[in-house]
């Protein structure tokens, strides 16, 4: 029974980390209408920041400073936001679809930097030995405590996102999303508001990246996969209902459950089929997205306000 409980905790932890990512994307796309296809880049910034600050000293990369996680995580969020600042300043003037292209390119740049700047990131070998919070509690309670921590972070981000959406700031963002000219006529500066929303979302993604690195206890360029870090997050947001924070969380949990269930289902197939089923997983996620877009474009919980 205990192993199954632990497996459940693992799945929920990952779902929670994805929920943080999806909340960040919802701030950018759902609330402000910024089409960011570069979540991967901000996840990487946060993950590497936290990994380098907390890992033990190593000759393979800069530092390993051995900091505790609670000091490193806020800085990881800051790293995500700081990466978003120059990118946003340059590219937010682009219209939605061009912004999407620019962010894809930037995510790819970040990934290649992580792979090739050995002195900073350890290159393709990555960073190992990242401590996981509460590890010292041992096998049954350590993972449960980490799950509670992730849950607390998601709750905090959710409260923050809700407060943002309700505040005058959030109303301005929606106004810009829906009719930029009208917002301008009302005396708002869309560029500044867009940039702030972009950085806020990127901070959430940086924090999610930090949690991811500490959960896997490893960060490397091979772990930065556009399918799992960017594409899956979009599926989650659209499935849950972009614009709604609760939808973002629900979408993350639901799609992650489907993703994990397909892995388990594939393993039940006999012999050769089990290995071939790997390709069916991606197909099923794509199919789910198509069906949602066709039959329920507002997502599971609707588009919020």
């Amino acid at each position, binding site marked *: 029974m205990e192993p*199954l409980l632990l497996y459940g905790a693992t799945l929920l932890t990952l779902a929670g980390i994805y929920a943080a990512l999806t909340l960040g994307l919802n701030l950018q796309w759902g609330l402000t209408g910024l089409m960011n296809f570069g979540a991967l880049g901000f996840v990487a910034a946060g993950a590497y920041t936290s990994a380098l600050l907390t890992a033990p000293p190593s000759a393979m990369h800069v530092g390993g400073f051995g900091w505790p996680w609670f000091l490193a995580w806020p800085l990881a969020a800051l790293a995500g936001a700081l990466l978003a600042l120059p990118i946003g300043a340059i590219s937010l003037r682009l219209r939605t679809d061009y912004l999407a292209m620019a962010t894809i390119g930037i995510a790819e740049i970040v990934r290649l930097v992580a792979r090739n700047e050995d002195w900073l990131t350890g290159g*393709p070998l990555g960073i190992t030995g990242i401590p996981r919070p509460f590890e010292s509690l041992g096998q049954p309670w350590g993972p449960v405590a980490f799950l509670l921590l992730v849950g607390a972070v998601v709750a905090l981000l959710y409260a923050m996102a809700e407060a943002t959406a309700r505040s005058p700031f959030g109303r301005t963002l929606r106004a810009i999303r829906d009719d930029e000219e009208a917002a301008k006529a009302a005396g708002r500066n869309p560029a500044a508001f867009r940039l702030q929303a972009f950085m806020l979302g990127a901070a959430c993604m940086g924090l999610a990246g930090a949690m991811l690195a500490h959960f896997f*206890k490893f960060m490397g360029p*091979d772990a930065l996969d556009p399918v*799992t870090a960017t594409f899956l997050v979009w599926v989650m947001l659209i499935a849950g209902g972009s614009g709604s924070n609760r939808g973002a969380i629900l979408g993350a949990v639901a799609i992650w459950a489907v993703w994990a269930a397909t*892995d388990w289902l594939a393993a039940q197939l006999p012999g050769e089929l*089990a*290995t071939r089923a790997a390709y069916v997983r991606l197909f099923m996620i794509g199919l789910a997205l198509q069906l949602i877009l066709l039959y329920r474009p507002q997502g599971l919980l609707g588009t919020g306000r």
Partner: protein
Amino acid sequence: MTTFRLTRRAALVAGTAGLAMPGIARAQAEPVRIGVIMSASGGLAAFVPPIRAGIALAFDEINAAGGVLGGRRLQMVEADDQTNPQVGVTVMTRLVQADNVAAIIGPMASGITIAAANAVSIPAGVPIVSPSATAPAVSDLNDNDTVFRTAVPDGLQGRVLARLVREAGIERVAIMAVNNDYGRGLSGGFTAAFQARGGTVTAAQNFEENRPSYRAELQTLAGRGNPQALMLVAYPASGGNTILRNSAENAMFPRYIGTDGMRDQSVVDQVGARALEGMFGTGPGSAASPERRAAYVAAYRRANPNLDPGGGFVAQGYDAAYVIGLAIEAGRSAERAAIRQNLRAVANAPGEVVGPGEFARAKQLLAAGTKVNYEGASGPVEFNAAGDSEGRVEHWRVQDGRIVSVAQLAE
């Protein structure tokens, strides 16, 4: 109402049947679950079918010999890591926690092995035996003696390849290596050994996988320092074949040198035999005595007429399954800790030597209290203190459109 009564009666019957079944028989019939993590999709996917068949063959032989622990079967629980470390961690978590496996064969790639072992199998104390993780860094894991591999680490391969290249009369080599731990580690080891033997690396390039074309990189390499050959550290599906094809189309290099990653018949089939004639390289070797190797090859061919028993890491996968089966039998327990403690005992000398296909004999020996020493299809399989297998490196070359084995080398 009627339906309800019927269901209840059915439940009662089922319950009684369960009670009537002897408890011991049920416990014996319960299989021992062994996790198998392969990169069934992603960059390493081309390697998987023959390796998987090798592991399945070993399990079939063990089960045909009556299984382990007085009649329990070994059951393969499979997972695909998509050649991605994060997915590797997730699926290993599933195997360890939900499927409750006793031991794990895999993962295949070194980076995935390090990530998944650190996050999952080492804390849980699950023994893992990788058939193909070759990076030297795997030896350095702080693993409580849980991480083993039947593959030979890359340091040795780099040294052997450097010697072979010099012996072929080649002095100037250009290197194109996949930009990951495997490519960089192996090209670095080769470069050091090659220079020590008086060779020159004219230029080296780390390439990104899955690009539509590598002509620009190849042109740069070919134009610098007049290289006599191109050494390619790559995987076939994620760039290796494209590089060879690009180079052959423009006749950029007169000769090619490969490593274990490219030792695959599909490379020759897809790029064309004429372009690759004279290509040679190194791969995971076999130090097995000829009759042990022959027993394995014959059994493999019977079960899989269309797959290559000499393919990269195929024999290593087979041996990984065998040592796990033997360790369970030797420790008389499918507990993770017992398997861990007995892996070295059944693989290393001294002991009565048993080989591929001899599980029944090994069981008799173990039952009689004799210590066994498994000498496998890939080599003697002796685990050192770091859990690495000390084995051989194969020298292969392309001849008339087939990859043929030339020799098995130790240094």
